[in-house]
């Protein structure tokens, strides 16, 4: 039997203390132990990006992270970004521009887009494509995702310039 280790971490603002096997992936911990099934597992080798979360505010592959490595850290998953009836700016733009079809890659795509908005730098469509290139989507052909992120970024930059808080996503 593999010895379990205690971890304490914050996920979407709530603190969780658990004893887990050191080999347990953050994806499995979030999805199975905490029931946060928003992020998905698409490849387990860091290419597809479906499991992307925010780890201490920046995007990270949950499949390439052991849950014990998240000890003491702050994790944000799609469940912490907005909710039905109170979608975040990015979620609204994704809906408006039909930037999701099956929705499987979407939670990871949103985490990456969230970081793009957090950086709050104006980007061309080509730069947005580059920034999104670590998240594979097989349904949309990316066109509508680029439009959604571009419009969200413009609005965020506009509102930041106007003095509101740069609270991305």
């Amino acid at each position: 039997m593999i010895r379990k280790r205690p971890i304490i971490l914050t996920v979407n603002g709530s603190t969780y203390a658990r004893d887990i096997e050191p080999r347990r992936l953050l994806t499995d911990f979030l999805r199975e132990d905490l029931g946060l099934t928003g992020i998905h597992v698409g490849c387990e080798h860091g290419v597809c990006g479906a499991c992307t979360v925010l780890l201490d505010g920046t995007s990270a592959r949950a499949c390439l992270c052991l849950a014990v490595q998240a000890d003491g850290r702050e994790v944000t998953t799609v469940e912490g970004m907005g909710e039905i009836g109170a979608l975040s700016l990015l979620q609204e733009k994704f809906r408006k521009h039909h930037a999701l079809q099956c929705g499987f890659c979407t939670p990871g795509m949103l985490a990456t887009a969230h970081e793009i908005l957090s950086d709050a730098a104006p980007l061309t469509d080509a730069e947005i494509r580059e920034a999104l290139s670590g998240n594979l989507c097989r349904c949309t052909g990316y066109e509508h995702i680029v439009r959604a992120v571009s419009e969200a970024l413009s609005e965020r930059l506009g509102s930041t310039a106007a003095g509101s808080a740069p609270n991305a996503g």
Partner: protein
Amino acid sequence: MQDDARPKFIGSRVQRLEDPRLLTGAGGFVDDIQLAHTLHVALVRSDHAHARILSVDVDAAGALPGVIGIYTADDFSASPLHATSRMKGYQSTGITALAEGKVRFVGEAIAAVVAESRYIAEDAAGLITVGYAPLPDLVDSRIAAASDVLLHEHHESNILVSRKFARGDVAEAFANAAIRVKDSFRFHRKTPLAIENRSYLADFNKGKQALTLYSSTQVPGVIRDALAEVLAMPGHSVRVVAPDVGGGFGGKASLYPEEILVSLLSRKLGQPVKWTSDRLEDLLTTSQAFDEAIDAELAVDKDGHLLGLKAEILGDVGAYSIYPWTAALEPMQVAGFLPGPYQLANYQAEVVAVTTNKTPAGPYRGVGRPAAAFVLERLIDMAAQRLDLDPVEMRRRNLVQPGQFPYRTGSGIVWDQSGFIECLELACKGVNYPALQAERSVARQAGRWFGVGVASYAELTGIGSRMSAAPGMPINTGTETATVEVDASGAVRATFGVASHGQGLETTLAQIVADELSVPVDSVQVIHGDSAAVTHSTGTYASRSAVLAGGAAHLSGQAVRDKVLEAAAFMLEADTDDLDIEDGIISERGTNKTLSLAEVGRAVYSEMGRFPLEMRAELDLRATKFYDPEFGTTTSATHIAAVEIDPETFIVTVKRFLVAEDCGRLINPMIVDGQVHGGIVQGIGAALYEEVVHDQNGQALSASLVDYVAPSAAETPKLEVLHLDTAALGTLGGYRGMGEGGTIGAPAAIANAITDALSHLNINISELPATPERIYRLVTQAIEGDT
């Protein structure tokens, strides 16, 4: 809709009803479902392409704490299921949960470990050793076709399907031709690559002796019927639920051994049993496609008119004949659609489908038509070049003209009225073809390798009962069902047999029902993907759901509207002809009398005494209707691509991509655009990036997402889509299917554009994907040949 009522939702960019849950992580994919006491499966898979299984040593694995059991084929008595066919000479193969006696491709499952967790199951699977007696690996389809070594011992040869057909006088057409162009074309193997890997969770209820399988499938009805047969259970005791499904593209449209396996295990163990594929397993075992070698020759007169076409099609269908589509599916589809949207009466083709020691082939977006369009559109450009005709003019002269529909093609397919010429002209206008040609001239003068490619195609969608989704297959897929009901609260539910997995059917079908009932679109709940919700259905594939389920939605919606009006007329003491419905409120014209749908619902179900006894036998607000479009309908498009090739690195960049298409009346333009975009990018992947590669021993080399190269946003151009938006005449609602077209036209357009960019070197692109490696070789050969 009432004739006088303009549709409110059909044709509008209605935001998707499924989005809020999917955007907030509240969707429910199979692997998201956690049932108490679920057991987990890990599979021991063959690392040989072709071998006899001598032994399976499970002792060490079985001793691991947490392991519940280890199973091989010997532990199950279910007999194999065969994909049968009416096609003469067809040889079927059996599908079983685990390999019986021998393995036929790398990745075929041999043993299943059931354990308390996936981690333990994988630990145990790693301790199992399999003894093999290797057999010759038949990886090349030409070699397999001629080999005495048989993959399936009961077969006469490795050729599962062999067909020849001809129409018109091909010999005369070729004898009279001013020019003949021919080439050997090769389309390499792809995998559909849904981002959600396949996942199955079986839950056998001992008390009810009933099984529920949660499956990431496109075809819950097909799977239900198959499982009922394999498990020898009545259909009502087998329920297959496709909840949120993370993309399919055809890869989830067939029956898989693991669906049978978890069902058998759950019944055996009396607990829920889950298996979720990892990406390696997906790349080894999900059905693959597009693996064809096609020799074709086109005869053309001096004015560029197509006279005749000859083709030999060799399809590599992998180790098994897929259920239910059979090995005939793709190679026959190539042959059927090869004559394209053109006036081309004289055609002959020979089709051979060969079984090899590779992953079984199955449906993938476009099915055969991407290869068919690639071959024909290349040949047309080759002929145009010989005749010094512009590729657009060449197509303009040959496309079936508006007055010629219905048009029977050289393969016997009948095109109903569709905007072939209109799409070509719209695409040229949309892309500003003369300006694009001028841009090409400027680029070339600067030494840049810039090319423009055009491809036109047509496809049959929304296939009804008079056609077969796959030639010879025993299941007729020609109808779909819809049940629309208003309940006592006035809420509207519409239940379908189709299974949405990204297409947005929860929205588009709700749009149709909402317009028929004149209720708000977000008040319509769409149920789909649950075999228990309908008596019969097959599912979502072959660009059928908008046409078939949409048609059924119109019919059942109209029927319920009539029932609502009938009940309301009685309640208001009015004539049904004087009643209107608007936003769920029924009103009598010229009066201020109104009723809400909820009031009608409550009266019908909870105050039925208000109605006379003779009305009550039929007194519900519910209707089930089926729709059968009989033949199906023709969807057509023209794709135009502009590419630039780096003359030093041979990397191809798609600079521009435009589609003009006729998918009939658009239900939701936003969703249609999304479908076309996704299809195009899979077509770009097929043209430039994606290839399943096996070595000579049948080992899959492209077994990770690093090695199987699917395009990301950075490799993808901005996409432009134009629609004719004219109602199809032959289908209810005027819809045509459009989920696959993007993938059909894009490889051909890009192949033509690359060839155009390389025209100064006289290079013909006859093999896809046109990777930088392949272009490097072609250019090197061309330059060496010159010197």
